[in-house]
């Protein structure tokens, strides 16, 4: 979104990007009428992972912090939505707001520990946050039902609306929510905070020397990323009607980072990356039982392909 746009003289005069974006959205909306129920449920999963990838990209690609632990806040949001649904609150928008709030609160609570560190240490600490949170979800049985997880009733798109039990409708609800979240993210990236986060990624000492309260600014960014991850968790409940500690586990964290890496710093790229991950792991893998192999190949392609793309661009 940023790196490709800022190359003067490369873009043709026709506004290609808005056209491509509009075309993609149209196809996404029409998807339930094009493909079958199984593919639609995969597409919904991809959107959920895409939200988590956006949250990760806000830290990795924009703020320059290699965050491994966003799955933790995703899990906090998912459990929030599940507990609400089991308590009789099934309105999706309420889930989204509540899950984003608890995700943000969890991020705020952990930010002081996490933001003491940078680079590889930051990655290790966020990894610790992720695994500790997942362990907590597995051990706190009275609330989370442990490793058996929580089953929930179907989510409704608005209070009193129809229950989302048909894959196509669930998908459209999730798509609408993700588009809204994407819009919010776009606004955030163009805001002062977005610029400040990029500045900190580039030269933190310079930011401090200009009087910026670096830790405070990074905390804001971290909390915002936590809110997006939490909202993603609410969407997980809409799609799966189930959450367990595995949904915030190591594998989820790893593939999220992979999706962000495929996106190479760009927010739309992260969502595309998430779609690629689900396509390789579940769609290709689902019919051949070689999902992990396809995922491994994708990892290698990213590791070797990104320098190649860079070279082609320059």
């Amino acid at each position, binding site marked *: 979104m940023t790196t490709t746009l800022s190359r003067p003289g490369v873009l043709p005069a026709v506004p290609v990007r808005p056209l491509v974006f509009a075309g993609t959205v149209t196809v996404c909306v029409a998807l339930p009428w094009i493909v079958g129920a199984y593919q639609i449920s995969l597409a919904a999963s991809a959107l959920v992972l895409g939200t988590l990838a956006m949250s990760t990209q806000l830290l990795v690609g924009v703020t320059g912090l290699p965050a491994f632990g966003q799955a933790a806040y995703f899990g906090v949001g998912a459990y929030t939505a599940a507990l609400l649904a089991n308590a009789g609150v099934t309105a999706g928008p309420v889930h989204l707001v509540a899950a984003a709030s608890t995700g943000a609160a969890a991020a705020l609570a952990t930010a002081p520990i996490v933001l003491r560190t940078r680079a590889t240490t930051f990655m290790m600490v966020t990894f610790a946050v992720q695994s500790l949170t997942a362990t907590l979800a597995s051990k706190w049985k009275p609330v989370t039902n442990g490793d058996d997880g929580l089953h929930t009733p179907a989510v409704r798109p608005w209070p009193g609306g129809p229950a989302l039990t048909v894959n196509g409708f669930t998908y459209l609800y999730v798509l609408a929510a993700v588009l809204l979240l994407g819009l919010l993210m776009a606004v955030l990236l163009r805001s002062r905070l977005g610029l400040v986060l990029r500045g900190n990624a580039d030269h933190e000492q310079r*930011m401090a020397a200009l009087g910026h309260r670096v830790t405070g600014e990074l905390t804001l960014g971290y909390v915002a990323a936590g809110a997006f991850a939490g909202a993603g968790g609410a969407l997980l409940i809409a799609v799966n009607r189930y959450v367990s500690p595995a949904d915030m586990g190591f594998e989820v964290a790893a593939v999220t980072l992979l999706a962000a890496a495929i996106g190479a710093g760009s927010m739309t790229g992260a969502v595309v990356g998430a779609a690629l991950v689900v396509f390789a792991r579940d769609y290709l893998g689902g019919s051949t039982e070689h999902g992990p192999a396809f995922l491994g190949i994708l990892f290698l392609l990213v590791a070797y392909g990104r320098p190649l793309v860079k070279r082609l661009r320059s």
Partner: protein
Amino acid sequence: MTLLQVDNLGRRYGGLHALQGVTLAVPVGARHGIIGPNGAGKSTLLNLIAGTVRPSTGTIVFDGKDLARLGPAARARRGIGRTWQHPAVFRRLTVTANVTLAVTRHALRAPARRPAVAARVQEVLERTGLTEHAAVPAGQLPYGLQRLLEFAVMLAAGPRLLLLDEPSAGLDPEETARLRAAVGALPEDVTTLLIDHNLDLVWSVCDTVTVLAQGRHLITGAPDAVRADESVRAAYLNVPAVPSAAARPVRTGRPLLRVTGLRAGYHGADVLSELELEIAEGDLVAVLGRNGAGKTTLLNALTGLVPTKPPTRIELDGTVLPPGRPHRVARAGVAIVPQGRRLFALTVAEHLEIAEATARRGDVYWTRAKVLELLPALAGRLSHHATRLSGGEQQMLALARALLTNPRLLILDEPSEGLAPAVVAHLATTLGVIASSGVTVLMAEQNLDLALRVTDRVLVLAEGRIALRSPVASLDRDRLHELVGA
């Protein structure tokens, strides 16, 4: 009225006193210069005032307030602005975004609303002449413009005290003149603390000068008084005699390096186009030119660090050097002392070991013993980490690392950058000794005095071409000054 009061300030690193018992009073509006040899503690003093380093002893009072408990950001909000030795800009952000980040509500003394911020940014860009580069990512600007941008970013934050850490390092003469004008044009109530090795700049800009040596305060006074002081001469200004290049036997050696059709550049645009070059064995050649003329690109292309394009052909003693393969170029006998030194996170001894391991096979002339004899400063520091060395020692280490590979062609990129006059003089002597051992030397340099004193021949680059090539003895100085903007 005193704006900055420093009392008995000291900083220890282990057993090393980087700064010891320094007391200074800087009044509002002063232009205060700080000079001294490499390792005198100048940058430490500046970092202590900026808050990036904590003092071991002493106090710093700014505008009546003790700064001890304030971090760098809090000090910046109170009006302390700074630059770094290497331009600290946001490389991936545009020029506009760089300045926008400086316009905080502290700078505006009002909430940072979009229209107010945009107006201030516009004003800063126009005043500094950066408007035409507004949409360019800072990392893609030429070095001189990055320095200018850093200056603009610092000023946009509206500081009352400027800490300038070697602002003229790496600038060509014309850019230095512009810097002098910019410092001269600062509002009268803005106070400036300036560290620089360019003494002409310091004498002309500053009204008070402090000399530091080995972490201690030597003298503070008006520029004339400081220049005349005997102890200052002894510690810093005294430049030993250097054997001039003419004293060396004139060489009629066969060509060692032959370059034809050299094309190189970044992002599609050629920095160098169809460059032809021949250097005879044993020659000492200077590459001169303004910033952005292509000096570093040329040197890096020769060492294989920058990819070249056809029809480039680089031959060393008749053998074609493979393009884009720096390790093979190095094995063939080309060593570089890069700009900014690029040392490893290792000790001095480890640096030397690595270099020895990759020494060219055959007759090894430059052994560790010989190198340490040539650069005695390193001998006492073998177990020290490279980051703990002074600027001068770091440059010597970079030179030692290159020399131990026993190169046939030694390339140096801005070797005098950031070095005190006495160290520059020592460098000149050293290069003379290296050349007389039969090593061919090619160096890019902004310090014309040094370049013309040390070398036999000069090449002047302008806009990616060689605009002038001449022996130093018969050099057309007017033409040279016109080309480099002196």
